[in-house]
C-alpha cells in the first residue's frame, strides 16, 4: 500500500473538565494525499476543529488526553515532542483560521509577520524573506503587494486579511494546509475569490488541504472527499459524490435536506433536523445521533463501527445500523434527500 501524506488513525481527544471527561473526538480516521482536498463537515461542537488543531499540537494542555496516531510522511505527530512540533508547525503543516483579525498581530506589519515565520524556519536574510513575502502576497491576489506588505492588519479588509493569512500559510510550502472555516466570516463574493485561490493551490498538487466547514455549498465546490462529523465521531465518510448522491447516515440526510437552495424553487417547508446536538459530557449511549433520529431502533443502543456498508463502494463508510436498501428507501422525502419528520421535541 502506498504511503499517504497524512494518515490519521483512531484519533481520540478528551478533555478533563469539572463536569467529567469530555470526549471531543472519538475514533477519527482518515488519510490525505497531495493535491487533494478533504472536507470535514459538522455543526458547532462536533469536534471538527479539535481534530485538526490536535494535528498541529494546539490542543495540548494538562487537561487533554490523546489516543490513536497521526503520521505525517511517517512521522508521528500525536506523541511528538514540543521541540519536534516546532519544526513541523508552519513548515510541514500550516493552518488558516476562521477569524483573520484575531490570528494576525495587530501591532506588526503584515509583511513582517510573514518574514518572521519564514526566518523562524530558514536561514535567510530579512531582505530576501521580505521579497518572498511580497511574492507570496502577489500570488494570493493582493494588489500592490509591495506597498501592502507595509500595512497593518487593521488597514486590510476581511477578504484581504484572509489572503494575507493564506500567503503566510503558504510561505514555507507546507505539505499539509489546514483551513478551519476560512470563508465563514466573508461575504459570498469574497468567499468565491478565496475558494478560487484554494482551487489553484490544489491544481499545483504540492500540498494536501484539510478544509473544515459547515457549509455544504462550499464542500460541493472544493472537496474531493468528505468526512461528516457528529458529536465527536465521524458518522460517514466518502468521496464528494458518494456523500451527496448516496448518503448513508441519517444525519447526513438531515444536513443535505436542511440546506436552502438558491437555484431551486423552495419547498413549502424546509426539512429540519429536530432537537439539538447532545451534551458531550454525558453523550447518549450507542449511536450519538439516536435521540434525534426518526429511524432509531433497538440496535442503535450499540455503537455502530465506521465501516463500509455499500458493497460497490469500499471507500464509503458510515456508522448506521440500517440495511442499505432500507436507507435508500427512507432517505427520500418528497423526491429529495432529507430526514423524515420525527416526534422529537426541541
Amino acid at each position, binding site marked *: 500500500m502506498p504511503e499517504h501524506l497524512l494518515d490519521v488513525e483512531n484519533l481520540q481527544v478528551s478533555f478533563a473538565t469539572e463536569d467529567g471527561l469530555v470526549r471531543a473526538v472519538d475514533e477519527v480516521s482518515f488519510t490525505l494525499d497531495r493535491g487533494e482536498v478533504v472536507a470535514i463537515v459538522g455543526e458547532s461542537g462536533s469536534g471538527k476543529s479539535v481534530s485538526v488543531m490536535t494535528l498541529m499540537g494546539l490542543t495540548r494542555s494538562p487537561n487533554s488526553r490523546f489516543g490513536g496516531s497521526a503520521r505525517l510522511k511517517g512521522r508521528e505527530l500525536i506523541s511528538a515532542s514540543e521541540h519536534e512540533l516546532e519544526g513541523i508547525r508552519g513548515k510541514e503543516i500550516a493552518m488558516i483560521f476562521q477569524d483573520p483579525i484575531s490570528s494576525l498581530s495587530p501591532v506588526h506589519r503584515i509583511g513582517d509577520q510573514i518574514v518572521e515565520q519564514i526566518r523562524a524556519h530558514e536561514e535567510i536574510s530579512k531582505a530576501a524573506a521580505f521579497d518572498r513575502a511580497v511574492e507570496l502576497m502577489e500570488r494570493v491576489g493582493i494588489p500592490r503587494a509591495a506597498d501592502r506588505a507595509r500595512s497593518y492588519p487593521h488597514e486590510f479588509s476581511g477578504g484581504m486579511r484572509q489572503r494575507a493569512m493564506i500567503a503566510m500559510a503558504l510561505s514555507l510550502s507546507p505539505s499539509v494546509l489546514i483551513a478551519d472555516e476560512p470563508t465563514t466570516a466573508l461575504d459570498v*463574493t469574497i468567499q468565491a475569490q478565496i475558494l478560487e485561490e484554494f482551487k489553484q493551490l490544489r491544481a499545483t498538487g504540492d500540498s494536501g488541504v484539510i478544509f473544515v466547514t459547515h457549509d455544504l455549498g*462550499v464542500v460541493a465546490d472544493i472537496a474531493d472527499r468528505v468526512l461528516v462529523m457528529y458529536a465527536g465521531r465521524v458518522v460517514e465518510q466518502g468521496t464528494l459524490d458518494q456523500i451527496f448522491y448516496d448518503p448513508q447516515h441519517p444525519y447526513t440526510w438531515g444536513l443535505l435536506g436542511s440546506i*436552502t*437552495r438558491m437555484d431551486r424553487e423552495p419547498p413549502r417547508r424546509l426539512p429540519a433536523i429536530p432537537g439539538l446536538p447532545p451534551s458531550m459530557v454525558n453523550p447518549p449511549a450507542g449511536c450519538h445521533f439516536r435521540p434525534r433520529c426518526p429511524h432509531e431502533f433497538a440496535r442503535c443502543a450499540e455503537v455502530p463501527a465506521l465501516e463500509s456498508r455499500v458493497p460497490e463502494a469500499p471507500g464509503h463508510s458510515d456508522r448506521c445500523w440500517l440495511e442499505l436498501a432500507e436507507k435508500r428507501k427512507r432517505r427520500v422525502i418528497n423526491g429529495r434527500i432529507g430526514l423524515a419528520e420525527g416526534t422529537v421535541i426541541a
Partner: protein
Amino acid sequence: MSAAAAAAESGPLLEAEHVKLYFPIKAGVLIDRTVGNVHAVDDVSLALSEGETLGIVGESGCGKSTFARCLVRLLEPNEGSLRFRGQDITHLGRRDLDPVRREVQLVFQDPVSSLNPRKRVGQIVGTPMRLHGMDRDKVQGRVRELLARVGLNPEHVNRFPHEFSGGQRQRIGIARALAVDPRLIVLDEPVSALDVSIQAQVINLLDDLQDDFGLSYVFIAHDLSVVRHVSDWIAVMYLGKVMELSPAKELYTKPIHPYTDALLAAIPIPDPVENRARKRTVMGGEPPNPINPPSGCRFHTRCPRATEVCRTLEPPLAEYPAGHLAACHHPLSVGVEEIAGATRSRQSPLSAGSLMPDGKESPAEPVEAGTVEAAPERRWQRRRRPRVS
C-alpha cells in the same frame, strides 16, 4: 384593531421614501468639524404590504442593517420620509413612537449580545409587555405561552440566556419581539450565526409565526438562498443604494442587474454535478469606500458590462414587467421589447439621471411639495445601540 388602522390597511404597511442616512466623520479636538460623510443609506425607497416579506440582501457595508435600523426608527434618517400605516414617523419623538414600537419589532443577528446575560428569560420576554402596559399578573402566563409557541420549554422561564444554545437564544429573541403583538418584525440576519440544521428550524418557525399571526417581515441577510426561501420581494443593495427590486422568484431566474448576477454566481451550489457544470465568473475586487463612492453607477468599478455612460451618469430604477425594478444602463435577461417598455420608477433616487436603458430620456417627475422634505438641522443623536432588555 382601531378604525383608523383598518382604514389605512389598503395602503402599504410601511413605506420608505428617498431615505438617506449619513454618518458624519468628525475631526478636530475642540471644534467638531465634519470632514466627510459615510453614505450608509443613500436615497432608498421601498414599501412593504401587510403579510408580505421583503428580503434585503447585499455585501457587508451595503447599508442593509443601517436601513433596517431606520425602519424601526432606532436611527433617524437625515432625509426622506418613513410612513407606517400612512403615518409619518420620520422624525417622531420617543413618546410619539411608543404606539409604533408596539407594532414594529426587531430581531438581532447575534443572539448572544442581544440578550442581557443578567436577566432571566421570563424577564427578557416579559419586559416589553410591562413597558406597553400589560397587567403584571398576566405577564407570566403570556410569557409561558410565547415560549411554548417558539418551541422552548415554558418551564425554562427562570433560566439565564447562557443556559441555552445559539438556536434557542434566537428563539428567545423572537419571543421577545412577539411579546407586544407586533404587525411587522424586522429581522436583521436572524439565522446567519446558526448552524445549517438549526437555521432550517428557525426559518420554519418564522414561517409558521407569519401564517399564524399574519405578520409582515423585513428580512435582512447576506445569504441569497435563505432569502429566497422566505421572501415575497427581494431588494439588492450596493453601497447604500437599491440596485434591483424583484419578486422573489424572478430574481433568481431573471436577474437584471449585473451585480445581482455576480452575487448569484458567487454562491456555490450544494450539488457537486451541477456545481461542476456551472460556468462561473468570479467577480473580482471589493466594494469601494462608502465615504467617497464612485461617480455614476456605484457598481461600475467592478462591473463587467460597464461603459463610459456608467462612469458619469447614475441610472434610474427602470420598471420592467411584474414590478421588477433595476438600476442599470446595460440590463441583463431582458429583451429589446421589455427594455423599450420599461418606465422610470418613482422609487428612483432623486440624484439619478434621466437616461433609460433604451436611450430614451425620462426625467424625474417634479417632486410634489411636501413629499420630500429636508430634515431639520439637528445634531446627530448617538443612539447607535438600542438598550437591551
